[in-house]
């Protein structure tokens, strides 16, 4: 299991666990973390699993790459930033233990 913390827009922190090999989207949905919708089922097709990666983690997780599907979708999301990622595109590997993700106030 890998531990990940979701921080809501009101500052509430929720530490949850998820099996290795799942993504950060499942970490939120399987543990009832509010604010992640994930409408498309994790296919990188809807941008409703938008998160801001904590700045201390962004280099490990990796930034959006221009021209790739994830960046193309997130350009339209409200409040997208240089720390934006889609949770369904963040695989939960052992190296992600302790990851911190910020959930935007609204999806879409």
């Amino acid at each position, binding site marked *: 299991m890998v531990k990940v913390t979701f921080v809501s827009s009101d500052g509430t922190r929720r530490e949850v666990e998820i099996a290795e090999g799942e993504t950060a989207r499942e970490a939120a949905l399987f543990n009832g973390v509010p604010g992640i919708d994930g*409408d*498309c089922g994790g*296919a990188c*097709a*809807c941008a409703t699993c938008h998160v801001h990666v904590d700045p201390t983690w962004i280099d490990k997780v990796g930034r959006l790459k221009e021209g790739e599907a994830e960046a*193309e979708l997130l350009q339209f999301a*409200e409040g997208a930033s240089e720390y934006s990622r889609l949770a369904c595109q963040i695989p939960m590997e052992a190296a992600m233990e302790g990851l911190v993700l910020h959930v935007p*106030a*609204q999806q879409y």
Partner: protein
Amino acid sequence: MSIDTMELDTAEKIAAMPIDEIDVSRPSLFQQDTIGLFFDRLRKEEPVHYCRESHVGPFWSITKFDDIMAVDTNHKVFSSEAKLGGIAIQDMHSVEGALELEMFIAMDPPKHDQQRKAVTPAVAPSNLLLLEPTIRERACQILDDLPIGEEFDWVDKVSIELTTMTLATLFDFPWEERRKLTRWSDVTTAAPETGIVASYEARREELIECAMYFKGLWDQRVNEPPRNDLISMMAHAPATKDMPFLEFLGNLLLLIVGGNDTTRNSISGGVLALNQNPDEYRKLNDDPSLITSMVPEIIRWQTPLTHMRRTALQEWEIGGKQIKKGDKVVMWYLSGNRDDTVIDQADRFIIDRKNPRHHLSFGYGIHRCMGNRLAELQLRIIWEEIHKRFAKVEVTGQPERLYSTLVRGITKLPVRLHAR
């Protein structure tokens, strides 16, 4: 070749048709609501199906959920460009005398992305929160004026009125003239065959009138302090304030058209679905918190736009079939939304599904419906207010359906209200 025969296809006849001869472009199949039987067959026997000959020419049908998702998210291969035919099974024509409106729903990147980015903030969730109280107040008014115990047409008195009201609220459009919005929406998508306009010249005239009207609203708002209606937002936002006027008009009309028939038919479709599934209606009355999951289920069930179309820019393989460059590819959302390999018991209307937003009605990828949260917001408000007032909206007669291959519409729905 004639577009259509109005002869009703029976289940036996549909099952016996040679698969090659199936042509799902015929509007009568949608009007008679037998289309589902055709899609059931295609999904089972030939999920990627080629129709050689039809009134809209040859086209591919994509009928399974995952294949549709694959096409919708692959905009580099599957183009939405108007000049290649656009986004509907019927090609967008350049017609002499027609006013050409450019809309980003029928563009590819990079132009699509620039325009969508400019307009998106207007329907961003945080902006919708500001508009919610007004939308709710006006919805209450419409519902409070309805007769109890008397038969009337739900489509005209509620679905159209509520949708028009929301659009008027979004644009802060002069209230008394709000039905102009509905008219312009109909005119924008109208061809003379539909009877909505007499000719392309007549359509052009009306759209110019519409343009002048919005120009007036723009000029007024640009000189006033910013407010949270869409016109004021676009008149003041850096990304949109210098937009050429025709571009502004195209985007504005896209917002009107995008949110008009679709929302209207979801409002009607929900009432019909609950009446056809009394157990679900009982669940709703016992627990109105289910409205949250019922709303996306209604949108899946209705599938207000039956399809979107793309044009292949290169050869590509889907489901073992070879698509050629230039081919017309139709993603049948209505079929994918009934694909039980992805959606559990897809042929049933269930208001408390676990994953209700996992449907195709809004499309996916870069063109995914920009108004999807707004559409859900409207439906949620309406159902919350209906629930407070009426124990039942009872359907009292046969619904009438629209003769269209694109818009899955209900044109008439007689109902009677039961007070709570």
